[in-house]
Structures are given as structure tokens and as C-alpha cells.
């Protein structure tokens, strides 16, 4: 990695909330920028180059013509980082994968649906090799800073492999199942500090399945607490939609 690596940001289908999180680093962004050279960041910068070492890519691949573009980025970048749930696991975009294509096209665009090019939404890793994932919807600013620091030191950041429950206990939250609410913290990859549960909500699963997540045990817990298959499915499809196991 050169002394001052060249960094580029790209986006596909998504809300650009993860790049916004980067812009929201405020003073810290100015610090980071002194150690890297931002060569492309369309959301906040006009000039751009194609010569870069690290590419941060946000959003899902949702149409055939996205593929050559992501392959080109893969070819140019030494390190490709997937930024946020849409890029790492497909995320919310995959909700449409459960609906018939002609149906969702006509629902939104009526007779003009045929104008649209689209296919099943998928994460970047379904099309190209991804070197590093920064999970979350949106990404956590501290985790992003840490990942960038590790990159600058020549390392690849690996997110925690245990479930959100671990961090949720540390945060001192009451288990949502005890309150009669369905929560995916039991199978979702940690690293967020259980932020949504701490904010009074439940874990929605935006960081993807934890490696080795025990789905059978999760099913048992949901059963024991009286949740129907439909309720479980509502939650599981929200972010894990691209996962073939579900």
C-alpha cells in the first residue's frame, strides 16, 4: 500500500446513507483525509480519477448493466470494500426478490414497467470478489474509522463473528424476548454495540447472519415465545433475503 493510498467511493442501488455516515465523520473526516487521497466521491466531490488503490462500494447490484461497472471497479482497485448492508448482504433491496418481477414492475411503474431494466437484487460478493466488509444499515462511524486505520496499516479488518446478543448483554438491555418482541440479535453478527436494541427497538438483522449462527436454536426460541412462522419470516426476509438457507 502506498504512503498515501488513493481512495474512491462508488454507489449502486442504495440510499447513500453509508457515504453520508462517512461525510458525517465531521472533524474526524479531515483527519482521515490527511492520510489518504480521495480521488472519487461523487456525493461531495466533482473531479475524479480512475487510478485508485482502495474502492469503497455502497449499494446492491440490481440490474444486468451494473455488472460490467462493478467488474471494472474490481479490476482497478487493489482492495474492494463493501460498505453497508446493501453491498455486504443485499439488504432491504432483496425484499423485491420475493415478488414476481412483472408484478413489482407494474405495481410501481404501471404500463411503463417494461422500460426498466432490473433483476434480483444481490450483494457485491455475488458478482465480484470482495476483500473486506463493513456491515450495517447504516454503517457505524467508529467501525468505519477503525477499518480505515487497519487498512492504512496494511491489515484487513475482520468484523466480530459472535452474535449481537453478546454486545446487547454488555449494554445492559433487557432481552426483547422477555418483553414479548421478536428480535434477530440471537443470530445477527455483532459489531454495532446492539445500537437498535439500546435505542428501544429490536435487532433487525442488518449486519447479516453471524458465521455459524444456530438457526435451529433460533427457531426453537421463536417457537417457545409463541411467534408464528409468518412473523419470523417477516423479520428474516427484511435483511437476510439473499441468504439461500432461509
Amino acid at each position: 500500500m502506498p504512503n498515501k493510498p488513493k481512495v474512491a467511493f462508488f454507489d449502486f442501488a442504495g440510499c447513500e446513507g453509508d457515504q453520508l455516515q462517512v461525510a458525517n465523520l465531521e472533524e474526524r473526516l479531515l483527519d482521515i483525509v490527511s492520510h489518504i487521497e480521495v480521488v472519487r466521491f461523487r456525493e461531495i466531490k466533482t473531479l475524479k480519477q480512475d487510478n485508485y488503490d482502495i474502492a469503497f462500494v455502497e449499494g446492491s447490484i440490481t440490474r444486468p448493466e451494473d455488472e460490467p461497472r462493478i467488474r471494472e471497479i474490481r479490476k482497478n482497485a487493489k482492495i474492494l470494500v463493501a460498505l453497508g448492508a446493501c453491498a455486504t448482504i443485499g439488504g432491504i433491496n432483496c425484499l423485491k426478490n420475493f415478488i414476481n418481477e412483472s408484478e413489482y414492475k407494474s405495481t410501481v411503474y404501471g404500463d411503463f414497467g417494461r422500460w426498466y431494466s432490473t433483476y434480483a437484487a444481490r450483494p457485491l460478493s455475488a458478482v465480484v470478489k470482495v476483500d473486506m466488509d463493513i456491515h450495517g444499515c447504516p454503517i457505524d462511524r467508529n467501525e468505519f474509522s477503525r477499518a480505515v486505520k487497519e487498512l492504512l496499516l496494511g491489515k484487513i479488518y475482520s468484523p466480530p463473528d459472535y452474535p449481537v446478543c453478546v454486545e446487547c448483554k454488555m449494554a445492559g438491555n433487557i432481552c426483547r424476548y422477555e418483553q414479548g418482541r421478536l428480535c434477530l440479535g440471537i443470530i445477527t453478527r455483532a459489531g454495532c454495540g446492539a445500537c437498535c436494541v439500546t435505542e428501544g427497538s429490536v435487532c433487525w438483522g442488518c449486519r447479516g447472519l453471524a458465521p455459524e449462527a444456530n438457526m435451529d436454536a433460533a427457531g426453537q426460541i421463536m417457537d417457545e415465545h409463541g411467534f408464528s412462522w409468518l412473523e419470523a419470516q417477516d423479520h428474516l426476509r427484511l435483511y437476510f433475503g439473499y441468504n439461500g438457507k432461509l
Partner: protein
Amino acid sequence: MEKAKSQKKIKNSKKNLQPDTAGPRVLEVKHLTRVEGHGNIVVELDSKNHVQDCKWHVVEAPRFFEAMVQGRPYEDIHHIVSRICGICSIGHQLCSIQATEDAFGLNVSEQTLDLRKLALHAENLQSHLLHIGYLVLPDLLGVDSVFPLAETHRDELVNLVACRRISNEFSRIICGRTTHPQRLIPGGMEIFPTSQELVELKSKLEQSLDRIAGIVDLFAALSDKWPDFKRPTEYVALVSPTEYALYSGEIGSSKDIIRPAMLYQQVTNEYCVPQSTAKWTRNTGDSYMVGALARFNLNHRLLSPRAQKAAQKLGLKAPEYNPYLNTIAQLVECVHSAEDSLEIISRLLDQGIKEEKPARIRVKAGKGVGAVEVPRGLLIHSYEYSDQGRIISADCVIPTNQNHSNIQMDMNAIKPMLSGLDPEAIELKLSMLVRGYDPCISCSTHLIDVTGEPKESLVKFIRV
């Protein structure tokens, strides 16, 4: 196929030209930068740099949110539609919650309303400051992004970043975090800010008023940098007799009667255009404008005192017909949002924050509409629920979509002003025009890809 389409466009432009003007060119600004989402400007020039045609296209990948929420339970809807846009996530959540509450006939407490208004002010500040400082200011100072300002305008930049930080903290204290927050739910709030947090927030906002005054001074000094272009159009925004309407109100217009939000379709009148294939909107005329300038033009009398003074200082007077000055109206709104928030916070502190349980929701079949003024203008969500509390159909009308036709009409009107200018100057003027609307294209769920693949060069000349 995309290529064929663009070639056809060039051919068409050739046909339209007079025989004596040889060598038409097409100038394209591909993937306009410093806006949220993907858009292109396509300009057709003849050999003497006279602008023949000028078009605004959107190339964002369609995302199908209105289909994605079908069949989903009401508890998840605001969580899903929040993901339409990272910048306006709070606005989308609030609008969605309003529509859901409307469908179930639910009323929320006064405290909840106050907290929601604060949430909206926080988002207004976050989004406006991002647009004013990071996206527009570089144009006025002649640089390509906010980064070089760290060398040339350090104090101004530090002030701006500090304001942004306060607005982010504001949003975190009220909603729990800055993007896709978790506390706002149908019926109330999951968690409340503590009074200590509110006291801290109050002192920070007081500080930020002085800091924003610094930004106002900066923009007042740059007032000669705006292109002198005026085009009266119809201005549409929520209106309320008692306040500068943001969270609630009826749909008002500078040229039409006031309508309740449930009749939104009578105002938006979405229609299709063969040339752009994007859905546009119109009401009384060919196009209308939503956003900070529309709100200012309709509701300026209800701005807070400091905001009125800021408007005077910036030379903004209703009715203002220069679309470039939308950014200035946003700056005035920043002052208003900070000042009005202080008032709301004082009220909340006087009453004391009550840990209210969210209102009980009785699910029933029915329709509901939500209408909220988000940073970019009027946002409408309309849902139909089944008796199980699951979405049957949804419609979201996004501010940027309502502005597309107005942007195109502005481009038509500005053409004579551009003739004879260098391509670079034309590009700057047009980019600034579009950027002025602060378009949020990833929000625009009703748009169609017309120009296909991104080209690598920013500007493209084609000699025919």
C-alpha cells in the same frame, strides 16, 4: 440498446438544426456530482456554442419500494421506507408514521408531536448544512469539493463542520442516531431524551445560532456569485395558519386553493413524458416547485424573528423567482429551525419529559395519508392497510420527482443566457441550477433509466 438510443438522440438533434449551422455537439455532464443520487445533464451545442437543447435525465437504478412494502406488517413500514434515502431518513419515517396513524385513526400526545417536530428540525439542519456547505459552497468559491477549503478557508470550514456536528448531535439526542433512527414509531416514541440531554442540546443550539450567523455573513458576501436568472413558477408547500409548516399542514400553492393532504393527487397529477420517460408532476401550469424556496415564498411571514433578519441580510424577499436562491432559502430555514427548536425545547423542559407509553394501536382496514415538509420539499406517503395491518398498496410522492419538470422548464428558459459561453461555463451554470434544487435522486422511486451506462469522462463532446 442504450447506445442505439443515444445515437438516435444525436441524429434527432441534427435534424432539428438549421442547415447553415454545421457541427452540432452534445455536451453531457454524466453523473452530476455533489448531489444525492445519479443524474445527467445533456446539452446540445451548435458550432458557435449556441445551446440548441438542454435536458435533465436521471439514471438511478429503480428500487421498487412501493412494491417491497406490500404485505408487510405496519410495524416495519417506517423502518423499510427510511431506506429510500439516507439523508431524508427521518422525514420518510415521520411521513410513513403519519400515514399509518391516519389509516388506524390514531392520535398521539402533544409531547410526541413536539419531539417529532424537533426530529424534523434536526434533519432540516443536517441536510441543509450538508447541501449549503459541502455541496454548493465549492461552486461559489471555484473549487471542486469541500476538501481544498481546508487550506484556503479554514475558519469558515471549521465553523461549518462545527454546525454540522451540532446538527448531528441534535438528531442523535432526539432520534437516537443520525441516519435511519430507531426511536420514532407509530403511536409515539420508543425512548425519550433525558432533560439533562435537552439542557445540553439547548446550549449547543444557542451556540450554533451564532455559528450559523457566520455562515449567513459568508453567503451574504458571496451574493454576487449567483447567476441572475428569474423564472416565476408555481410554488407548492404545506401551509398552516399558526406556524411555518413542516410536520403538518395542508397543501398550499402560490396559484391554487389549499387542499387537505388526502387530496394530494389533485395537486401532483403525475404524468409521463415521451422525451424523458420519467414521471413528472404539474398542477395549474407546466410545472411547480417544492422545497425551501417554495416554503419561503408561501410561509415567510411565519419564520422566526432571527430567520426573518437573516433573510433580509441575504437579500431574500418573497416572492423570489430565482431558483438558484433555493440554497439561500435553506440557509434562512437553518436559522428558523435552530430558533424554533430552542422554543420547543424550552417548552418541553418546562413541562418535564414524560416517559409516555406509545398510544395503543387498533389495527383495522383502511387508507391513510401522511404529508411532511422534508428538506427538499413536500413528501407524501399514502397507504392502504388490510384488516391484518398489512400493506395492500402504497404510493410515495417524493419532492425531487415534483421538481424534475420544473428543472427542465428552468433549463428551457435559461438557454438564451447560455448561448456563446464556453462549454465549461455552461456546464457550471447548469450544474449549479440542478444542484440548487438539492435533488435527492435515490429517493425518486418513479424514474426510468434513459441514458444507461456511465461514461468515464465528466463532460462529453460529440462532433457530428
